[in-house]
């Protein structure tokens, strides 16, 4: 983790900001119209790490697809620096839930994929790749195939593949899902360090309260069906962040606040019969203390 607040060094203006304005997204399924997002507005600030949370099925992934430009909203607009989104672009890079490294390419080829697609010269590509591979600690593994790497290494390779292109905005859709607890915590520390060093605009989606608060400058909580922004919390924990902060009083305070907000939505999702909501409920109950929860429910 780089020392005294490396964020100040970089010129933040080169990074982008995202404005989601009054976005509604409806899907038609077997003649039934389902509203996933309704009048959803959101601001992902320049050079900040914004974390999005919400129960399963609240349209987090849909929102990502809209920002990435893979899908188009039914109503409303998504702007990147005042330019409406019309399709995917390499100013916004997405790191996916499940690893999307190409299994048929070595780590090096994967990481340099974007450079080659954009026709950047071989020399410069190599230079950039070496720098970034060393940064994520995969330089010695550059000739391996993704399946030969551990889960954590795969995620780091994926981060490298996105960062080498210097995107204005990085979008991460539950990037640490499926990692074991230990690796996950290491990756969180690694990722937050990278962010603090570079200070890019990051939009990060997760299920985990602790992860969210540990990483975020700003925490956005969504409502369950139809999805819109329920609350935004500014996380004023100092940077650089450190695992020890997980036990600080301020952290616990924010955490309690976030869990209360999330719990309402999770309960809605739960009674609506969402399968995965059950898991979130279970997790929240465990975190909040079971008796406390049961009282709230009435």
């Amino acid at each position, binding site marked *: 983790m780089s020392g005294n607040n490396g964020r100040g060094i970089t010129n933040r203006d080169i990074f982008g900001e995202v404005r989601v304005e009054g976005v509604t997204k409806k899907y038609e399924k077997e003649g039934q119209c389902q509203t996933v997002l309704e009048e959803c507005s959101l601001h992902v600030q320049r050079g900040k790490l914004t974390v999005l949370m919400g129960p399963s099925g609240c349209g987090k992934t849909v929102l990502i697809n809209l920002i*990435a430009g*893979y899908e188009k909203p039914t109503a409303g607009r998504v702007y990147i620096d005042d330019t409406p989104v019309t399709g*995917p*672009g*390499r100013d*916004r*890079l*997405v790191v*996916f839930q*499940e690893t*999307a490294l*190409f*299994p*048929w*390419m070595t780590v090096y080829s994967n990481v340099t*994929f*974007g450079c*080659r*697609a*954009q026709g950047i010269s071989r020399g410069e590509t190599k230079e950039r790749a070496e720098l970034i591979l060393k940064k994520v600690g995969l330089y010695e593994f550059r000739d391996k*195939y993704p*399946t*030969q790497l551990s889960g954590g290494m795969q995620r780091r390779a994926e981060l490298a*593949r996105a960062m080498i*292109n210097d995107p204005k905005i990085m979008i991460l859709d539950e990037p640490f899902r499926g990692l074991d607890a230990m690796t996950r915590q290491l990756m969180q520390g690694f990722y937050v360090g990278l962010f603090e060093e570079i200070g890019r605009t990051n939009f990060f989606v997760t299920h985990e309260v602790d992860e969210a608060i540990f990483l975020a400058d700003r925490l956005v909580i969504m409502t369950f069906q139809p999805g819109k922004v329920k609350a935004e919390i500014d996380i004023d924990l100092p940077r650089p962040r450190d695992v020890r902060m997980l036990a600080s009083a301020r952290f616990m305070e924010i955490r309690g606040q976030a869990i209360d907000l999330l719990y309402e939505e999770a309960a809605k999702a739960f009674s609506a019969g969402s399968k995965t909501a059950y898991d979130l409920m279970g997790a929240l109950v465990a975190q909040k203390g079971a008796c406390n929860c049961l009282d709230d429910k009435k």
Partner: protein
Amino acid sequence: MQRLKEIFTDRQMYRAVLGMLAFVTVWYLLTAVFNLPRFRQIPNPLAVLKEWVSFEPVSGRSLFTGEYYLDIAYSVGRTLIAFSLATVLGVSLGLIMGWNRMFFDFTFPIVEILRPMPPLSWIPLAVLILPGVEIAVIYVTFIAAFFATILNTLLGVFSIDRNYFLAAKCLGSKPKDIFLNVVVPGSLPFIFTGLQIAMGVSWMSLVAGEIISGQRGLGYAIYEGYSLFQYDQVIIYMFTLGILGYISSAGIRAVGRRLMSWEARRRGA
């Protein structure tokens, strides 16, 4: 570790030999010892072997005659031409069908109707339309392999995780790059499964084609042996086909492993 591997392979070898011995013994018992009524005309394994390595074979075909290799050359040549055509055309068509929705909509129904037609049912049309019996036999050998390749290539393209396309797109790939970097390598495992199947059906249809309308070649010689009561020759050629089939299959697997080293590593090799 090395020793362990040796013991393992040794034991495997030993079992393989034992299995084959059992097979030959049953054959020997049925033909030479018990001489069962339905097996009276079937030559026993020793007689077949003797004929196979004879310098002066009764049928005029053994390991030491040019005739034998000429038959092999004819069949291998036909199969190679048909299989290569099937690979080139089948893979290209399959990739385009998987890639282009409109092309798929146009072509898939036709493919699905033509695909189940047994290769032999093509013989009359093939003979009528194509110049010369030789090309007709090659066509019959080609057709089933062609459809097997198309279908598997198509499945290969469909099997590619959607995320790979999204990732390539957001990394700035143009459609051409996505085709070359995602569609082609992503469907390789299925393509090679398809090629294995294609090779198998090629040999099957070849022999049938040669029996019905061929001149020379293994299938033709099998039928000839049957008509001339030279059953040694029939069995020798059957085994020859088995060996050729095995070699061609192994060849495809070897090429596949070469091209998909990333797949092999996944299996922990």
